[in-house]
């Protein structure tokens, strides 16, 4: 009751302020009337009575104010006043405001932009029920079959886990793949996910329209032509058609029925891969033609997830699944292909174990790729923010000096120190709030640019990561704002409120105050120099890494070289038909004017793909399976000519090669044929399905110079090449074209050739090799570009800060300098007197920065290529660059000091 009454009164005085105030007026008015009436009754005149009443009452205005104060909302009213006053003060010094706001905006914007990416890539939980219960089930140990990813398992093994486990309320598996979608009159390649029937029920994801896939939609191989759409794809591609359920679409040439649309915001379980279609796992053969995997134990391709039963933790789940993986492996070693395993290999293989990883964020290759770079960028942008705060603190300290008089006046007329600190903090909050708002805008723009450089937009025109700030990003920016106010605002505010009243109200001649302030500003400057050096060293290292990678090159000339990929199997062209298509297309392209050479490769170069396969070689015995497995590729004649990679021995393939032949690279030759001439000797592929050949059956007809394969970073692996027309299962193919003209001008003609031969086969990834190399270096480019921007920003901030402090010091010492000059100091002496401080301040900063760089360098070692984190040349060049910038900034005030006219300076005092 009591609290209710109190609360009611408080609310009343807050929201019915006017009414309550009027009531108080009434109350006081009534009192006065009563007193006047009383006074009249005892015989005073009307006039006298009024004065007497007022006298005995006191000052009504002051008393009313005191009364209002008891209502408890005074502080709010004062904050309102502070805000209005703060706005006026900021408007009165627009230059200061603009510089401070922009500085903060850059600092906060950089951090928010990086956080926004990091949040989505590294931190965000899946939008499903109880994501914390989700785990990933993976196999650890050695494999002899093929694998699509380190965290994938085979479908039969998934089935063993699903049916035998005691620890999950449910399991599901998924596999991402591109399919060709036909709807209306348009055919396009879209990102899809093959999912088990348990996928939606176990995730707890519902359907926005129609129904979700259920276990009954995933029973018979090839027997469930049904699909679900993602919500965003349904909006974009199907214009949010409410009657979509039951419609027919064509996937890879098969007619499917759309059964529903998933709930909004759900795009599959992989960050960086937005699934647009969900298709039952049992349709695998139709969706990834020529590769029947559902009963294949030696092929790992399914990412398997489980939902832990309540009360079961990861360790328990792992222990409980171990017998299952063992049984599964025992079945696998019975397969014919396992017959050739050595006893040692077999024993090792049976020791493979299961691992259970937390999967509340799903699984993401993007995350693994970007994890370290993003943390590096978070650290760099954090340093930029620190620098920005230091700069704003510096500005505020300078401003505090110019406002000393104002503060003194306010203290003198009775403002409390707390009130003044609060006033200054409110002003700082205003600055920070405006800075944050601008920073958010900058972050949004920066993220758009970053996303555009990092991802190519897909057919639906969207990126797998969003640049629009969500609630978490806004909260983060808000937190940043509070933090910055604390860091840059509190110390200057405390200091200004301590202004001495008397000396400030007098003329400010020779004001002694501010010595401590100058010291604080010098500390800030040295700190800024240190941080700027740190960022410059980082930027130099990352730029060098990028340059080293670019210079290292792929092992062939990239000039006038372009590539594109076709996958006619998605349109029903398989085997002989596909090979025929490839040959005819190659012939047509070669006939195009401007094209000098065409080569075909099954595996695209420098896109991170790799088909590794164990081989055996004539006269070579492997030492216990420790070998790096060679990368294999099916190619056409003239591929090496097209790429410009020379043969170092033997010859290239020709279409007349009908016998089993192979070409190997130098690394493979060195390894398997050390000291021998490999041409004419034999190698053999260890086949996945059948027992290994007893004798190597492929004759080596040539040795080719090394070229980079998966990316530019890794050295060339051992490689083996085979003619593609010997492949029993031709599917997709990447075409390489060397031209005499700019490849960009050929692209349209190439597309037309493909369309003429096969109207429905989409051409994907068409770009020049230079562009391809650019794409393969996108992480390095992102890090190098951003760290360069951060480094430049940091240098600018530090130099501006240094300039500001030196200019301030010179202004304060004008009179002293005037006296020195009057007493005979030379211009050079004065110049050096000021420059000495510049050198000292930057020197201390540089030393601290170098020590910091030395201490932190090893943290980024994994991100570098061809340069050491403690590279002395980098350290020296970054220091020189910063020192030069600092010197320039210091020279201006020093020069000005040396030009001080003693007469003028002294008269001014």
């Amino acid at each position: 009751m009591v609290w209710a009454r109190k609360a009611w009164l408080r609310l009343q005085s807050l929201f019915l302020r006017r009414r309550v105030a009027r009531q108080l007026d009434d109350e006081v008015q009534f009192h006065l009337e009563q007193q006047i009436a009383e006074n009249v009754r005892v015989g005073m005149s009307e006039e006298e009575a009024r004065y007497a009443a007022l006298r005995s009452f006191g000052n009504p205005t002051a008393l009313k104010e005191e009364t209002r104060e008891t209502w408890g909302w005074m502080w709010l009213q004062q904050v309102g006043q502070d805000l209005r006053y703060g706005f006026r003060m900021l408007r009165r010094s627009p230059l200061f405001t603009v510089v401070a706001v922009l500085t903060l905006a850059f600092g906060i914007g950089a951090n928010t932009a990086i956080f926004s990416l990091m949040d989505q890539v590294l931190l965000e939980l899946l939008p499903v029920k109880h994501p914390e219960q989700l785990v990933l089930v993976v196999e650890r140990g050695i494999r002899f079959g093929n694998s699509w990813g380190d965290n994938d398992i085979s479908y039969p093994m998934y089935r063993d886990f699903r049916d035998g486990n005691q620890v999950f309320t449910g399991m599901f598996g998924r596999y991402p793949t591109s399919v060709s979608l036909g709807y209306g009159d348009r055919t396009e390649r879209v990102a899809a996910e093959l999912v088990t029937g348990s996928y939606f029920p176990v995730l707890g994801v519902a359907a926005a329209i129609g129904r979700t896939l259920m276990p009954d939609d995933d029973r018979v191989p090839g027997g469930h032509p049904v699909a679900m759409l993602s919500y965003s794809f349904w909006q974009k591609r199907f214009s949010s058609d409410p009657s979509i359920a039951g419609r027919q679409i064509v996937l890879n040439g098969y007619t499917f029925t759309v059964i529903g649309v998933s709930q909004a915001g759900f795009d599959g379980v992989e960050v960086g891969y937005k699934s647009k279609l969900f298709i039952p796992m049992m349709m695998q053969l139709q969706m990834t033609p020529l590769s029947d995997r559902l009963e294949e134990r030696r092929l790992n391709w399914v990412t398997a997830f489980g939902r832990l039963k309540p009360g079961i933790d990861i360790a328990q789940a792992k222990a409980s699944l171990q017998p299952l993986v063992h049984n599964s492996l025992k079945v696998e070693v019975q397969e014919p292909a396992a017959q050739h395993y050595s006893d040692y290999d077999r024993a090792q293989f049976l020791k493979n174990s299961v691992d259970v990883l937390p999967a509340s964020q799903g699984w993401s290759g993007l995350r693994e790729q970007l994890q370290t770079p993003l943390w590096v960028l978070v650290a760099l942008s954090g340093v930029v923010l620190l620098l920005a705060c230091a700069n704003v603190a510096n500005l505020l300290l300078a401003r505090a000096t110019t406002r000393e008089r104002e503060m003194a006046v306010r203290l003198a007329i009775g403002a409390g120190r707390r009130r003044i600190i609060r006033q200054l903090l409110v002003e700082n909050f205003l600055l920070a709030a405006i800075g944050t708002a601008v920073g958010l805008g900058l972050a949004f723009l920066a993220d758009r640019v970053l996303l555009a450089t990092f991802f190519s937009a897909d057919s639906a025109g969207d990126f797998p990561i969003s640049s629009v700030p969500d609630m978490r990003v806004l909260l983060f920016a808000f937190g940043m704002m509070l933090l910055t106010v604390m860091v840059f605002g509190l110390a200057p505010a405390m200091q200004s409120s301590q202004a001495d009243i008397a000396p400030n109200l007098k003329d400010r001649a020779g004001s002694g105050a501010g010595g401590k302030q100058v010291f604080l500003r010098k500390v800030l400057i040295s700190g800024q120099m240190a941080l700027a050096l740190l960022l410059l060293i980082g930027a130099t290292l990352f730029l060098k890494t990028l340059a080293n990678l670019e210079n290292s090159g792929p092992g062939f000339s990239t000039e006038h070289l372009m590539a594109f990929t076709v996958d006619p199997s998605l349109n029903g062209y398989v085997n002989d038909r596909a090979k025929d298509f490839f040959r005819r297309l190659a012939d047509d392209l070669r006939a195009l004017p401007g094209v000098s050479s065409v080569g075909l490769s099954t595996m695209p170069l420098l896109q991170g793909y790799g088909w590794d396969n164990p081989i055996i070689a004539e006269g070579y015995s492997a030492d216990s399976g420790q070998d790096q497995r060679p990368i294999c590729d099916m190619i056409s004649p003239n591929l090496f000519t097209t790429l410009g990679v020379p043969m170092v021995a033997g010859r290239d393939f020709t279409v007349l090669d009908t016998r089993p032949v192979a070409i190997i690279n130098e690394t493979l030759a060195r390894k398997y044929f050390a000291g021998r001439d490999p041409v004419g000797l034999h190698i053999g592929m260890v086949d996945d399905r059948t027992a290994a050949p007893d004798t190597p059956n492929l004759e080596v007809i040539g040795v080719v110079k090394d070229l980079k394969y998966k990316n530019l970073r890794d050295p060339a692996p051992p490689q083996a090449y085979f003619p593609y027309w010997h492949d029993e299962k031709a599917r997709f193919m990447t075409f390489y074209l060397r031209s005499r003209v700019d490849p960009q001008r050929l692209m349209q003609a190439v597309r037309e050739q493909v369309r003429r031969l096969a109207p429905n086969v989409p051409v994907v990834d068409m770009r020049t090799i230079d562009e391809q190399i650019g794409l393969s270096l996108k992480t390095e480019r992102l890090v190098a570009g951003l760290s360069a921007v951060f480094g430049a920003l940091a240098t600018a901030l530090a130099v501006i800060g240094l300039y500001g402090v030196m200019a301030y010091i010179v202004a304060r010492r004008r009179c002293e300098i005037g006296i020195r000059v009057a007493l005979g100091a030379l211009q050079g002496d004065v110049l050096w007197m000021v420059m000495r401080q510049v050198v000292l301040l930057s020197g201390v900063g540089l030393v601290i920065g170098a020590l910091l760089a030395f201490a932190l360098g090893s943290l980024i070692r994994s991100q570098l290529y061809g340069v050491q984190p403690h590279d002395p040349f980098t350290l020296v060049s970054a220091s020189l660059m910063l020192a030069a910038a600092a010197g320039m900034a210091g020279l201006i005030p020093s020069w000005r000091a040396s030009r001080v006219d003693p007469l003028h300076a002294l008269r001014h005092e």
Partner: protein
Amino acid sequence: MGKPTDLVQGTLDLLILKTISLEPKHGWAIAKRIQQISSDVLQVQQGSLYPALHRLERKAWIKARWAETETGRKAKFYSLTAAGRAQLEKEAANWSRLSAAIDLVVEAT
């Protein structure tokens, strides 16, 4: 805006609580009553009553109600709440103890 000392403030609170303990009164009547009873010894500046009244109201020791006076004018009448009555007893007891102690000290010398 110096705050009254605890003693003064506490004393004024006590006087107000005591004055309205018998029947609801409006501000002027409270001031009048305090003056009368103390035989004009306690010259409370009448206006300073109002901050005290509002403070007590906010502590929920007294409650206010708008009602008509005998002359037919609307005025704000204050009366004690249960919490206020308890507070009055406590403060009155405190005061007796304090004044007795001061008496002792003063008369001993």
